[in-house]
């Protein structure tokens, strides 16, 4: 007897279905007010109305979108050019390659501690600045943590995500046939034209994939805004957590509605990225 080829999927698929799919469905049911444990089983959109009416919601949504958009864009640009610059030199091999990945295993919570130690008004940079006579007192140092723009959060996200983007670009660069570059050069293309017309289009799938992951992570990020952000407005994940652990159990459906909003936004971004990659693969494929 031959076993069907999809049988091997079952252990992992059932685990994901139960814990992730089941968790999301339970979250949906509970956000709609289905809480038998609290003696409630009437479905309603009250939690969603309450979220929209909550004064802290819109500032948090704007703040979270700002964090995700800026960190995605900045890490894409810096990561792309760092990878390109280091790739076509001997320095990109060996030591640098591993050194650049130094922060990949750093947990985000530790990354946030590193930003605190460096960038607060009495942090290491402020101390060095005072010792060098650039500033006189802590108040002269710009406020970069717990600030309205989330500078500290952005620093941590970009510091970590840039490496992730660079590693993705590096991997994609390895699979590009060097003959393309040679052909473009032979045809008299300038370095900029070789980059914009040859390299960049070939890197697009890798860039879209990396951008999707960075956006999704930063949009749903919890510990970095918790440690480096202001209390208000906070990132959506922090707001949802505070609602969930609030003494007032009536806030729980709101917390679930908020966390589902994060899931839906990141899910839509993931689907969009996937669709874009597919379209690019179709139009970029070999023509007959």
């Amino acid at each position, binding site marked *: 007897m031959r076993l*069907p080829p*999809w*049988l*091997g*999927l079952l252990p*992992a*698929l059932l*685990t*994901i279905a139960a814990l*992730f799919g089941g*968790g*999301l469905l339970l*979250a949906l049911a*509970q956000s709609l007010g289905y809480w038998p*444990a609290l003696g409630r089983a009437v479905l309603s959109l009250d939690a969603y109305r309450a979220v929209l009416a909550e004064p802290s919601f819109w500032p948090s949504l704007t703040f979270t979108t700002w964090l995700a958009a800026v960190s995605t864009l900045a890490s894409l640009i810096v990561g792309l050019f760092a990878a390109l*610059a280091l790739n076509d*030199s001997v*320095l990109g091999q060996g030591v*640098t390659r*591993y*050194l*650049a*990945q*130094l*922060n990949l*295993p750093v*947990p*985000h*919570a*530790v990354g946030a*501690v590193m930003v*605190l*130690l*460096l960038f607060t008004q009495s*942090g290491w940079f402020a*101390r060095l600045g*005072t*010792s060098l006579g650039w500033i006189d007192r*802590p108040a002269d140092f710009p406020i970069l943590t717990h600030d309205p723009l989330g500078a500290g959060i952005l620093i941590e996200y970009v*510091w*970590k995500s840039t*490496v*992730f983007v660079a*590693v993705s670009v590096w991997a994609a660069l390895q699979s590009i046939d060097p003959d393309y570059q040679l052909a473009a050069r032979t045809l008299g293309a300038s370095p900029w034209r070789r980059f914009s017309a040859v390299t960049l289009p070939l890197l697009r799938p890798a860039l879209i994939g990396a951008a999707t*992951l960075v956006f*999704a*992570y930063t949009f*749903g*990020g*919890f*510990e970095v805004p*918790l440690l480096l952000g202001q209390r208000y407005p906070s990132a959506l*994940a922090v707001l949802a*957590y505070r609602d969930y652990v609030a003494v007032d159990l009536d806030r729980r459906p709101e917390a*679930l509605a908020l966390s589902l909003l*994060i*899931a839906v936004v*990141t899910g839509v*971004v993931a689907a969009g990225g*996937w669709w874009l990659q597919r379209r690019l693969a179709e139009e970029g494929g070999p023509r007959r």
Partner: protein
Amino acid sequence: MSARSRRLLWLVVVVVWAVPFVPLLIWPFAGSWLYPAPLPTIWGDRAWSYLASPGARVGQALFNSLSLALVVAFAAVALGLPAGRALALGRFRGRGLAHMVFLLPAIVPPQAAAFGLHATFLRAGLVDHWLGVALAHLVPVLPYVVITLVGVFANYDASFEQQARTLGAGPWLRFRAVTLPLILPGLLVAGLYAFLISWSQVLVTLLIGGGTVTTLPMLLLAFVASGDHALAAALSLVLLIPAFVVLGAAIRLSRTAGTPAGGGRIA
């Protein structure tokens, strides 16, 4: 680019990436370090002696973090192994869809699912329990393990198993003597990435562990809230050192396993 500007670029990269580690390496050994001194005025081991004292509960947190990461990694590899193989080598309808299903939890943050599971876990006695946290860690970990294992099996030649079958080897012997040795480096790489993801979890642990299952990141949040830089930095090192050892091992192994370094991991 000229050789000089390349060297400059290299310097910038090294400085930007390495400088943030400097205060993290100094603070744990500071006895007294008041503003504006650029270096501690008194060196000492206050932070370490506190971490070593029973009141700090570092031992328990270290045990929880390590045991969770090891068990979750092992379980994820065991569950993900047949899935990685089926996705890489199997030919069946819906394979693309199955791929998507595994990618989705790697992208969508695990918190909505964790919030949703909380009430059910509470009834099952899994909240505030090690096992509940381990199950919840599987959500962010398993997708990455499956994706890594698909890569491992993409370079795998299944005809060796066919030869073993012709020679009369049963399924278990074929797995133990043929498949396992070929994929072992890849399995270890997948397990090491799983370890790192579990090791770094904060929100899921906080929610399902409810403050009872203390892991190292839970302690770190408490130390940062207390405002003691030396303690926060020292505990950060306790979190970082095993993570670096694990990444180093994964990079070494991935040369033989043919999987990309970094494993496409972001969280």
